[in-house]
């Protein structure tokens, strides 16, 4: 079974937010909410400054706390690609998953269920890329099977220095950022 993940090149990302707009358009994300977002981290002292821009979203963790804490099984690991999804009809809106996510990746949809990035599973199952990856104008975003050593994402991780967000939280995130 594939283990889908994402690799984002922080040297190529310019923070244009095309990924955010593409996601909102593709998934009809309601006003005031977002499934992905941009963070900018500026480090150092003048004149030696370092700016890191990261396009962030649900990390589809290998150890997802949102799935283990869900009282109804609405939050689950999907058979296809081990993607973490929410079954809307099972979600009671208790918000335990929101509290359990160290990335703040979830929000309550106005219809009452917990919502978040799905890796555009409806596109991926049809052989397409997630909307955010497909529109990235600098080709900073890559998507594929982390368990396949020949996949583009595996080769990038093997060949470049990289980091993940909040590794100490122990969630084993599947979005890698190239330095």
């Amino acid at each position, binding site marked *: 079974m594939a283990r889908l993940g994402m690799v984002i090149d922080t040297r190529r990302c310019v923070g244009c937010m095309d990924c955010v707009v593409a996601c909102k358009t593709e998934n009809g994300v309601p006003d005031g909410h977002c499934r992905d977002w941009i963070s900018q981290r500026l480090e150092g002292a003048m004149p030696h400054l370092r700016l890191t821009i990261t396009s962030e979203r649900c990390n589809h963790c290998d150890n997802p*706390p949102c799935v283990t804490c869900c*009282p109804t099984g609405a939050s689950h690991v999907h058979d296809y690609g081990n993607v973490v999804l929410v079954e809307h009809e099972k979600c009671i809106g208790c918000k335990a998953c929101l509290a359990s996510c160290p990335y703040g990746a979830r929000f309550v949809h106005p219809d009452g269920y917990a919502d978040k990035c799905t890796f555009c599973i409806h596109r991926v199952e049809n052989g397409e890329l997630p909307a955010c990856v497909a529109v990235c104008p600098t080709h900073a975003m890559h998507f594929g099977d982390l368990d396949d050593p020949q996949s583009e994402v595996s080769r990038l991780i093997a060949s470049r220095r990289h980091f993940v967000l909040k590794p100490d939280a122990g969630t084993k995130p599947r979005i890698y950022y190239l330095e």
Partner: protein
Amino acid sequence: MLEFVTTRHNPMVDPALHVWGWEIPVYLFLGGWVAGSMIIAGWLGRQGRSPGDGCVCHVLPWLSLVLLSLGMGALFLDLEHKLYVWRMYLTFQPTSPMSWGGWILVLVYPVLLLGALASVPPDLLSRWPVVAGLAARLRNPGAAGRLGTVSIVAGVGLGVYTGVLLSSLGARPLWASAALGPLFLVSGLSTGAAFAHLIARNPDEQASLLRADNVLLMVELGLIGLILIGLLTASAVHAHAAGLLLGGPYTAVFWVFVVGLGILLPLTLQTLMASHRIPHTVVAPLLVIGGGLALRFVIVSAGQYSHWISP
């Protein structure tokens, strides 16, 4: 220099980051109070009490039914997908404390109902022979003892669950303590004991409950100390979370309302009451009850404020 700019992770622009409002602290407080009352009623019931003897244990199951229903009402108000609440009872998710809690509540209600039924004086049930027969069987010393034991077990489960619900959410470092379950259990017991000695009519019973509450308040202080020490001696993330109560934005409300007015002042008053240096006053138990509510509000709110500080 380290400057961090993001379109998220800011409760002011993204209210989803402060996920639980007043409903959850109120529910946890009332659940803890009910847990404490069940343990006290179970303990007293095991010692062989009969309806009409004035024992506070006959009032507590009725009170608990009301409090638990209010708490469940608050919990229901918190749900965002209210019409789907029944989904909770189509499954059992062993890794989810909330699922455990949902099923514990299913156990708690019938135990409370049986306890309430056993406490009704027989002459009031004479018109309903079937119910009167069941109540008579429940008052049988053996059955009363078993019901008391079940009441204690269910109460402990309910009280511990209210804390484990939070401590299992590792994304919030302030809650990352195994002692949070025992703290909420002891706080619930203390609240239950305070209310019990507030309404107790038997002087001996009142004195026993008052002394018990003093011990519970001291244990509660000790558990708070252990939690803070545990966080301060853990990782930088956890020490940072403890800082919310030790110099951070929740410091004043925690030390004034939870520790000062909720534990130390009533402990002092109740110690003087226990040694008959001042007469019994309603102020002390009311302060204990208020302190229990403040504890839930501070822990739930500060816990949601705490986060993993690494990028």
